[in-house]
């Protein structure tokens, strides 16, 4: 599970970031998002798409057992999380994000909203239920 991303076709529009914040927080705020677009324009003329691939490496490093794997989705339990940041350092993708108003790292919930909206349809195949709804 997780996203299969064709990063070279990303145009850097950040629609994924804004729809993620609306879907998961009910707010317009691309910084409250489980996905990040990073510009590599100056050197490589491209963007990086940074998002959790649900590899689960963060699960074992969490001292508070706040992270679990459920049906292929790595999830943080905000009740158990102390926002210590150990998982952030351990994530091989750098795909756990902090926000001053949120008491736990923000990560992809595999809700599929970004995949559905991505104008280039590059955010890969998610669950079979979303098939046919992918843009592009």
């Amino acid at each position: 599970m997780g996203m299969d991303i064709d990063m070279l076709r990303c145009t850097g529009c950040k629609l994924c970031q804004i729809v993620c914040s609306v879907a998961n927080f009910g707010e317009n705020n691309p910084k409250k998002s489980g996905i990040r677009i990073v510009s590599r324009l100056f050197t490589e003329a491209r963007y990086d798409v940074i998002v959790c691939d649900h590899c689960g490496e963060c699960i074992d490093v969490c001292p508070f057992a706040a992270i679990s794997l459920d049906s292929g989705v790595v999830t943080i339990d905000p009740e158990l999380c102390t926002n210590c940041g150990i998982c952030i350092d351990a994530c091989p993708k750098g795909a756990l994000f902090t926000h001053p108003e949120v008491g736990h790292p923000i990560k992809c919930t595999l809700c599929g909203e970004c995949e559905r909206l991505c104008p280039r349809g590059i955010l890969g195949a998610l669950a079979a239920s979303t098939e046919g709804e992918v843009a592009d």
Partner: protein
Amino acid sequence: MYGYAGNILRVDLSCSKVSHEPLTEELVHNYIGGRGFGAYYVYKEVPPGADPYGPANKLVIASGPFAGLLLPSGSKTSISAKSPATGIYGDSNVGGHLAGELKYAGIDAVIVGGKAEAPSYLLIDDDKVEIRGAGHLWGLGAIKTEEVLKEELGDEFQIATIGPAGEKGVVFACINHDFGRQAGRCGMGAVMGSKNLKAVAVRGTRSVPVADIDGLKDVSAVMFRELMANPALKVWQDLGLAQVTTWANSIGALPTRNFRQNFYEAVNGLSGELMKETIVVGDKACFACPMATGKLCKASFRGKTVLVEGPEYETTALIGSNCALGSIEEVAFANYVCDELGLDTISAGNVVAFTMECFEKGIITKDDTGGIEAKFGSLDAFCELAHKIAAREGIGDLLAQGVATAAEAWGEESRRIAIHVKGLEWSGYESRGAPSMMLAYMTCDIGAHHNRAWSVTHDIAVGRDVIKGKAAKVVEFQHVRPLFDCLGVCRLQWVELGLPLEHYARLYPVVTGRDDSWEDLLVKSERIWNLTRAFAVREREDFGRKDDWPPGRFYEEPVPDGPLAGFGITEQDLNTLLDEYYELRGWDVNGRPKEETLTRLGLEDVATELREMGRIL
């Protein structure tokens, strides 16, 4: 306040003071945002007669209520000031990611006044606002400056910069943002430079409140669905605005050899298709835009290979066909040169083409150009002139003041081929065969720019020789198109992909919680239009009809070749267009707003001021 961050940030560079003040209900109700905020503050706070390069000029960087939200391309920042190019109100807008970032940092607009003692940049990091030294950035290219600041501060900062041309006060110096997007027009980069302000860097973490988040989701879902389902979207994603070049040529509108022609026989070398085949290496979008019209290109010239965003249509028209360059790769290279120097490609293309024609006609010689063989078709000449302009060396010092000033120095014969209105060089549509488009250029509030009323398709639809009745369409466009600049949203999705205006009308209440109809918003846009006109009338005792007049070339020379060969427009036609336009606007025969018009639009204070000055009857 829904749809807004709720604050204005004031920066006084003379005394290194920054302060936040709350956005007022009155400002939002009357002026919406973006260009509306710019017009309001520039009229209110820049005193008549102020030197555009002086500390009394204000630079207003303003977002709008749609910016930074989940909707198609809420990406537009308007940057306004008294323009050094025209001496009247000027603004220019830029896409990218700055507009939303300002709001995430809790700010709807930044008003910069004064002048810093030494080169500086403004850092906005949520509530932390600092004026920092920019000694290490001064002299660097506009894009290089952005790269250095991104390295220092991090990629999350959205940054606006100027190049050497802005530092040196070139009247067509632009402001760069996001690796090659520009607020190009009216010399806003020169205003920044005059304040010793090299860059503005912004990062914010806040959410932007909206009145009805579910309503926003519903309306934007429909908008995105319609955009994605439009077969034309793929063409825009593939070619971007570069596809316009061959179309403009086919309708006899492509500026060629300093607007002598509107048809370029070598257009195939400049086509969007060729560009995609030969130099495009990637696509690039502004915030939340499915169109991704930005094209990253690699271009080589004389052993140097550069990476550049662009060229888009305007650059290809004014630097390509207007300077008679041979290939899109040459245009892309020239685009890079202008971007790094911080020159608006539209005005730079005009200035160089004007120089080339004067050189061809013998009005100037190599003695004047400092030895440059300023011939049409020469990329070497383009690059050499661009560097001299940015450095203000030799002929560059004169050309840095635009074609109108250069023509004053070079005499009568050059004046009729200096292609500008109000001191702002003409953008990419030659309009001898498009009377409404001609009127749009003549009456555009900032000078000869197309974006306020792009009505050439109206001329094609109702008849290219028809004069009567054309002004109404121009007025209509001059209200609806700048409304997008107030709302902080790109208009391309409406103009090019036919997204209905009704969607934008439905967005306004769900975003802002206000009950204004689209018609109400158009009245506000008309208010702003009259306010920017009032600025010009207040500024100059003799401002009026003569300032809405195009260069002699357009009514003295018929179109020499191409699909519109033999076509022309007469002085009588131009006067008929203006008469009709002034009448519809409620302005007098000299193009000055009547008191009753200003009063109808809620500008009683402005009417009183202008009447007491004897500027209106």
